[in-house]
């Protein structure tokens, strides 16, 4: 399973304030965010989205998304229901390919390559860019076979190799200790939190470069949520993580950067999601540049 090292591009900051590089503000009509307190090194860009719009049939679900997602960071997408955050995260590993009528416009690059180029194999995209879903979705198979599924379809057949991958993935997902004695039993017998960590382990087993998490804790209790959040901190040393969350505290706790989306009526009165603000998480939560962001994070959503 050797993959060639991914092409990399280095972000050239568009704006420099007092010699400190910051990400460009995402909306031109917004004043640049106040000087971020996190010093910026050169950030390696994994995803660059420019003018991304997603349509379901004729309906525009989300529009005007311009943002860069940096390597080994946790990027959170927050916003009210219908704001397009899930739609955007699903465009990052081409999950929309499977939805009849869904179209992604604009450009999304992944390590500098056009993700939606005709030459790109979507299966390979999804192997490198793993995904964890809102509801834990283990297969009705044993714990072992759940983890081994990805490596198997990617050509790993040798038992000893699979054993190593399974142990490693479960260890990384902080589940090994709980399940090592029952690898042969059905994954459907796990609790919700365990099942979600199993799904994370399953995604990690194919050694992805990015992990997309679509509201991974919304079906879990606070203790299970805390474990997953701890896990994300450990994983980010080797992974780039993008998380969609309804829980603002969670975004504040886990993420390095936060993108706030909202839904607003377009000219014809249909609600369309759009990116309002994207900045260092601390800035979003302490000195948001947009009144809509402030309204949302302070609970005065309007």
């Amino acid at each position, binding site marked *: 399973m050797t993959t060639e090292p991914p092409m990399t591009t280095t972000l050239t900051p568009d704006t420099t304030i007092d010699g400190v590089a910051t990400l460009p503000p995402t909306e031109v009509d917004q004043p640049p965010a106040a000087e971020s307190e996190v010093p910026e090194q050169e950030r390696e860009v994994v995803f660059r989205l420019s003018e991304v719009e997603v349509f379901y049939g004729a309906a525009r679900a989300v529009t005007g998304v311009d943002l860069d997602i940096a390597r080994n960071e946790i990027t959170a997408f927050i916003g009210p229901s219908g704001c397009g955050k899930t739609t955007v995260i699903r465009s990052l590993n081409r999950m929309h390919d499977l939805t009849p009528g869904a179209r992604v416009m604009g450009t999304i690059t992944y390590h500098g390559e056009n993700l939606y180029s005709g030459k790109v194999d979507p299966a*390979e*995209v*999804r192997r490198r860019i793993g995904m964890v*879903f809102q509801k834990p979705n283990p*297969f*009705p198979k044993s714990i072992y076979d759940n983890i081994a599924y*990805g490596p198997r379809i990617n050509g790993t057949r040798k038992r000893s190799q699979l054993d190593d991958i399974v142990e490693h993935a479960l260890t990384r997902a902080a589940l090994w200790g709980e399940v090592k004695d029952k690898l042969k039993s059905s*994954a*459907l017998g796990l609790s919700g939190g365990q099942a979600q960590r199993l799904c994370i382990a399953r995604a990690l087993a*194919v050694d992805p470069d990015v992990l997309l998490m679509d509201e991974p804790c919304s079906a879990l209790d606070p203790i299970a949520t805390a474990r997953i959040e701890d896990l994300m901190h450990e994983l980010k040393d080797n992974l780039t993580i993008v998380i969609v969350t309804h829980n603002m505290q969670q975004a504040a706790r886990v993420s390095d950067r936060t993108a706030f989306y909202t839904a607003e009526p377009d000219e014809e009165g249909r609600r369309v999601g759009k990116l309002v603000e994207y900045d260092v998480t601390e800035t979003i939560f302490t000195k948001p540049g947009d009144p809509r962001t402030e309204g949302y994070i302070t609970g005065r959503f309007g």
Partner: protein
Amino acid sequence: MTQVLDPPASGAAPEPPPPLVGGPRPPGYLADRTFRIVAVLAGVMVLVILALIIWVLFDNSLEWFREEGIGSVFSLDWAPNEGKYGAGALVIMTLMVAVIALLLAVPVSVGIALFINEIAPRRARLPIVFVVDLLAAIPSVVFGLWVLRQLASPLADIYADVHNLVKDVPILGDVFGDPSASGLAIMTAGIVVGIMIMPIVTAITREVFATTPASQKEATLAMGATRWEMIRGAIFPHSRSGVVAAVIIGFGRAVGETIAVALVIGSSQVLTENVFAPGDTLASIIANQFGEASGVQRSALIGFGLVLLAMTIVLGIIARSILRRANRRLGIA
């Protein structure tokens, strides 16, 4: 609603609600009662009809059981001229026809179902479903006559070619043995029945495949699965029990199919392992011989109906238990 009997004295506790028992009946009461009675009657009627069928079959076949003994169900000889009325050969040939039909129909049906659900463009789905369902609307006698007049002799040529190809291979040489010149054979019956059960098997497997949760499909795809890997990893495991159900239903239809089989199977009651030779099934022999039969033969033919019924029930029970065990292993049930 609340009937105030005595006006409460000012400052007294509020009126208690009316008692649960003896109060006025809620508005839906009568309709619910009626529904209940109709549903129970319908449910009981199914059992009564089945019981009557079994009783009539048993009563009319009593002579066969009395004359030949219960062992004749398993006896392989059917020769009314010699007073031999065994059902065994016909049971086995019935199973042969059904197995051939299933071997042909199930893979094709699964393929059509997957094509419709996963590959065909949305707009093409309904027309394809319509065409497949239309196959089920063709009367079985039409199928039988079509195969008899158009397909039997080309099939005979194919059988001859296949036989020549494998005649020196140990077991295959016997199974695909000397073909009947007319093309009327167990294999031909299996093909007809296979075509006839395909629509129902397709319809059921399609429904079952469609119930695969999107989350399971997405789970496989999100790990880099191709479409075929998604089908194998998500759709098939989820659909196992449903496909078994489809096979059971297809099997029930296959063993019971009568007129088309009677027309193309060639009507020979001698047990053979050669699928290219003529045979007879429990259903087709009833159709072919009942008109001229009398006495024990007639009684035996009615008894075959009972055997057919028992066979379907037993196979259904076996299939269900296999299914339950498989599901328990998966931790589903």
